[in-house]
């Protein structure tokens, strides 16, 4: 797969604030790449630099093999979808979608045909003559998408496209966007702070934090093999346990968890375990187990959430399918197997609590 986008050492400062620092990654042609990170992590700035709406202070941008670092916006042929739609409020849906075609001097007959195609593709046929203020949020975002796609862009850049929508519409549009992408195959870059959205839509995820890239990989990589404590904490929920390194293992209480191979004996280390990676059993099955008392069991449909108390200070959260709840009730003693933890030396992004889902 060739790279539709290649960034090399992109840095952007606003006054004394460094929004983006030394960001490099590639986005493969024809796929969806997600830029995932908390707000203020610089992901939108990266997207705007690719579109040409911002100019980097250092680094280079290639689009389909052409260097475009300082290329004018209007020649980049990218489609951009803004979080708050940015529709032309005084134009009808049809004129909004036709705008890019008109600019590109597409003859009227072809233009009308293309607009009709997009209206059908975005399921907006009945709304062609409406003004944006007469549309729902989901409809507006579909118009924005149709407007961006109409001139057949080389890239589709989506800046938190579902951020302003309510949860139900967001999920609908997400599914629909995935289908649309399978149909069109246009190389897409999606900026989002929602890890679920990134995992569901993207074939490749670039995790960003404080202007830097933390990890680039497939959703499975980023989720199961986090490269940094930040990624472990940000992508998916995780239990956090602080311990000490002993011969390549982290000691937590009596348990020894493997994975601290690079770390010196006696140094502090942190283990991250996802709630569904905690294995509970009534007897001690491995050296990586710690005893605990079940505090509460909350059924959540497909899984049940189990609160486990290790000691006076520390609780962990496990998620189990209801079929594995035999013998697990508030007050019962269990052993928790920690062997699926990811271990890091403590650094930036380490917190002592369960990170949010």
């Amino acid at each position, binding site marked *: 797969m060739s790279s539709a986008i290649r960034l090399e050492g992109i840095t952007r400062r606003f006054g004394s604030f460094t929004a983006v620092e030394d960001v490099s990654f590639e986005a493969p042609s024809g796929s969806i790449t997600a830029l995932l990170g908390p707000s203020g992590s610089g992901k939108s700035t990266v997207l705007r630099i690719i579109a040409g*709406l911002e100019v980097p202070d250092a680094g280079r941008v290639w689009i389909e093999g052409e260097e475009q670092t300082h290329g004018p916006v209007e020649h980049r042929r990218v*489609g*951009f979808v803004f979080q*708050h739609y*940015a529709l*032309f409020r005084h134009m009808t849906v049809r004129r909004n979608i036709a705008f*890019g075609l008109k*600019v590109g001097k597409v003859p009227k007959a072809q233009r009308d045909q293309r607009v009709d195609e997009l209206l059908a593709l975005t399921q907006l046929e009945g709304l062609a003559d409406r003004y944006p203020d007469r549309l729902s949020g989901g409809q507006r975002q579909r118009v924005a998408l149709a407007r961006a796609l109409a001139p057949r862009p080389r890239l589709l850049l989506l800046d938190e496209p579902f951020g302003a929508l309510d949860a139900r519409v967001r999920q609908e549009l997400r599914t629909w966007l995935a289908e649309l992408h399978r149909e069109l195959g246009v190389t897409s870059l999606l900026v989002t702070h929602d890890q679920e959205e990134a995992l569901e839509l993207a074939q490749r995820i670039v995790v960003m934090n404080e202007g830097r890239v933390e990890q680039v990989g497939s959703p499975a990589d980023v989720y199961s093999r986090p490269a940094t404590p930040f990624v472990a904490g940000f992508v998916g929920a995780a239990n956090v346990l602080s311990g000490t390194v002993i011969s390549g293992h982290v000691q937590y209480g009596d348990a020894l968890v493997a994975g601290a191979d690079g770390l010196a004996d006696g140094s502090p280390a942190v283990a991250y375990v996802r709630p569904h990676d905690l294995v509970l059993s009534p007897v001690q099955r491995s050296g990586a187990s710690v005893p605990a008392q079940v505090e509460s069991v909350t059924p959540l449909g497909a899984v049940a959430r189990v609160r486990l108390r290790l000691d006076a200070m520390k609780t962990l959260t496990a998620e189990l399918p209801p079929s594995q709840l035999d013998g697990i009730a508030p007050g019962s003693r269990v052993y928790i197997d920690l062997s699926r933890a990811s271990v890091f030396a403590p650094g930036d992004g380490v917190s002592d609590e369960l990170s949010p889902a």
Partner: protein
Amino acid sequence: MAQADTGYRAAQLRRPDLGPPLRRLTVLAYVGAMIVLPVAALVHEGFAAGLTSLRNALAYPGAIAALELTFTSAAIVAAVGAVFGTLVAWVLVRYRLPGRAVLATLIDLPFAIPTLVTGVMLVTLYGPSSPLGAWLDRLGIQVVFTPIGIGMALCFVTLPFVVRTVMPVLQDLDPAEEEAARVLGASPARIFLQVVLPHLRPAVTAGALLAFARSIGEFGAVVVVAGNIAGHTLTAPVYIFQLTGQFRFAEAAAVSALLFLVSLCVILTTNHAVARWGNRR
């Protein structure tokens, strides 16, 4: 909650809050003394003898020409102000121009300096004794004592109107719409005309109408530059001034009432237009 809200509104509609009596009286008395009374006096004086005073005033040679000159120059100045004022506002808001703060202050200068000073400035700059005036004279262009000078004086005086009505609207405008157009390949001219301008129309119209109203009445800046030649550069306000100098107050009042009427129509149109556009957004 919603119902309580409507109930409260209905109560308000039935029994509108008139405010404390003293405050109410003070406001009414002040507005009455400052605005209503003078206007009433003007209309009464001008039309006490029916249309005779107005007819007499307009019968004077150059009177009709003065009104024509006043209204046409006001219209041209309003149009010029609409175009350049909008451009200035756009550049000031959207671009990091060097010396932007200085420019923004300069825009307000015409509000602050006495209009007579404006007239003197223009005569000094374009008068026959200045180098620029002499050079233009050799090209056959005369500014001072011609309608061109009147237009320039009015443009100077009314410059802030459109700029100051358009700037806040532009500042409120989400730049994302302009960015969306840029990404779609639109040129700056197209972005301005097709994306930005439609949002500015109410503000530009309001600013231009205010500039028009102000131009109709401008005296100080015009009287020095124009030379006040009847039938050529005599404007209506200067003509009114001349009438009062000849103690022909009834005729002065009749022409004044005419100007007042036009200004009133302009203000009403402005308010109506702004309210209508405001509702549509």
